[in-house]
């Protein structure tokens, strides 16, 4: 199978990630639940992962790293734990439902939401962020990269607006964590939410958030923590404040190995290859009859998420994706991509769109095979 659905999850994981998970599953106990070697081994593994990810994302301390099961959980914790009824939030039309649905839930309780506009290429209108600020604006919640178009958002610019106006800045780095350098301290990100299984190359069921030191987020969950058993409330100290229940030590071990792999290989090296594959595909399909490409591909110097999303004429995206898999063994994602407002802006609500997303493990031959398949399908009509 030629797997070009890496924006959903990277299928090929580095061997060191697999080895780390196997090693963890055959040795670790429960972190923080005892002082025997198995439990301490788990606690040490989790702590080493915290240290590495803190450094990876520019956090000053390991305690700023909270482990969750994915970006969705991280975003729910951040959004619901920081924003109150009566607060106003600014977000974008690029967002995934992992941002939108928690916000809509809060809207039902009296939170107000405004959306920065979107240009014809699917980029946020940056001027809107400042224009939309009100006296009760509490935060800007913004993706770092659209999962539908691959457009990368200039989060430095948005962070500057947030900082200038005293707003919290919550970033969804689902499509960028691990492949674009992110420094939460330098950029001024209050909460960075990431997942482990996409461009981080780690196992599914892992993810986390990097929380600015001193920022108090109301816990979404409460429960066992391995400390303060007789307290009726969740401990206030980070990261335990936001981590109830047994951590995914096996997955976190794999995530740590993945982050180490990225660091060792070089994030720039990984990104350069993915960019090359994306542009090769783009150049191969851009002139094909009836192909419509979504997103901003005007500036080759402004790196984007390695995604090319298309439609062919009026064909249902599901039909195109099915044919690609059934006749050519090429895996893509069709339909709607959990980004309803982006589909509305692009006019693809009914048709959906076929997303080709590339990873470091893909090859030029695979890209060329995908281009050839599309050419043949179009020729056949």
């Amino acid at each position, binding site marked *: 199978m030629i797997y070009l659905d890496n924006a959903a999850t990277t299928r090929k994981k580095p061997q060191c990630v697999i080895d780390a998970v196997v090693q963890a599953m055959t040795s670790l106990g429960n972190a923080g639940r005892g*002082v025997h070697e198995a439990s301490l081994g788990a606690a040490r593994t989790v702590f080493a992962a915290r240290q590495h990810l803190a450094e990876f994302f520019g956090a000053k301390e390991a*305690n700023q790293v909270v482990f969750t099961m994915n970006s969705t959980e991280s975003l729910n914790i951040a959004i619901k734990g920081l924003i109150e009824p009566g607060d106003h939030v600014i977000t974008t039309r690029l967002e995934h439902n992992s941002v939108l649905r928690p916000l809509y839930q809060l809207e039902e309780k009296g939170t107000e939401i405004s959306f920065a506009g979107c240009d014809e290429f699917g980029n946020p209108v940056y001027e809107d962020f400042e224009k939309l600020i009100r006296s009760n604006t509490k935060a800007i919640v913004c993706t770092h990269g659209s999962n539908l178009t691959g457009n990368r958002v200039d989060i430095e610019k948005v962070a500057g607006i947030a900082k200038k106006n005293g707003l919290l800045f919550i970033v969804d780095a689902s499509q960028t964590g691990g492949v674009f350098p992110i420094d939460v301290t330098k950029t001024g990100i209050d909460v960075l939410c990431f997942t482990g299984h996409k461009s981080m190359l780690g196992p599914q069921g892992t993810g986390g958030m990097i929380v600015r030191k001193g920022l108090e987020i109301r816990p979404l969950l409460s429960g066992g923590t391995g*400390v303060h058993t007789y307290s009726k409330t969740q*401990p*206030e*100290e980070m990261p335990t404040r936001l981590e109830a229940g047994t951590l995914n030590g096996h997955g976190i071990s794999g995530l740590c190995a993945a982050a180490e792999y990225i660091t060792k290989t070089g994030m720039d090296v990984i990104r350069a290859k993915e960019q090359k594959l994306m542009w090769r595909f783009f150049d191969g399909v851009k002139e094909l009859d009836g192909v419509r490409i979504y997103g901003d591909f005007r500036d080759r110097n402004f790196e984007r998420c390695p995604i090319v999303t298309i439609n062919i004429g009026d064909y249902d995206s599901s039909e195109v994706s099915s044919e690609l898999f059934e006749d050519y063994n090429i895996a893509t994602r069709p339909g709607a991509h959990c980004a309803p407002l982006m589909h509305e802006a692009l006019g693809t609500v009914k048709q959906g769109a076929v997303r080709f997303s590339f990873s470091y493990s893909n090859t030029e031959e695979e890209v060329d095979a995908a281009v050839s398949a599309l050419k043949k399908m179009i020729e056949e009509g």
Partner: protein
Amino acid sequence: MRKRELRLVITFNTTADAMAMEAACKKEEMPGRLIPVPSVISAGCGLAWSTDESFRGDFEVFTERNGLSFSDMVSCVV
């Protein structure tokens, strides 16, 4: 049962803080080991750092210098 003796016991609010202590002690070869929090200090659960009582001064300086967070530093028989 083992013979009990006077020890310096450092307790923590989170497992992560205990791990940070262990990692820092290992790096700077500070003596001691992690133990379960003795019930004489706190009924409950969690990890504590146990070391010889005579190192109290060293640990006060060490924790301060390394920015290590802890809940309490007490002498007790464990």
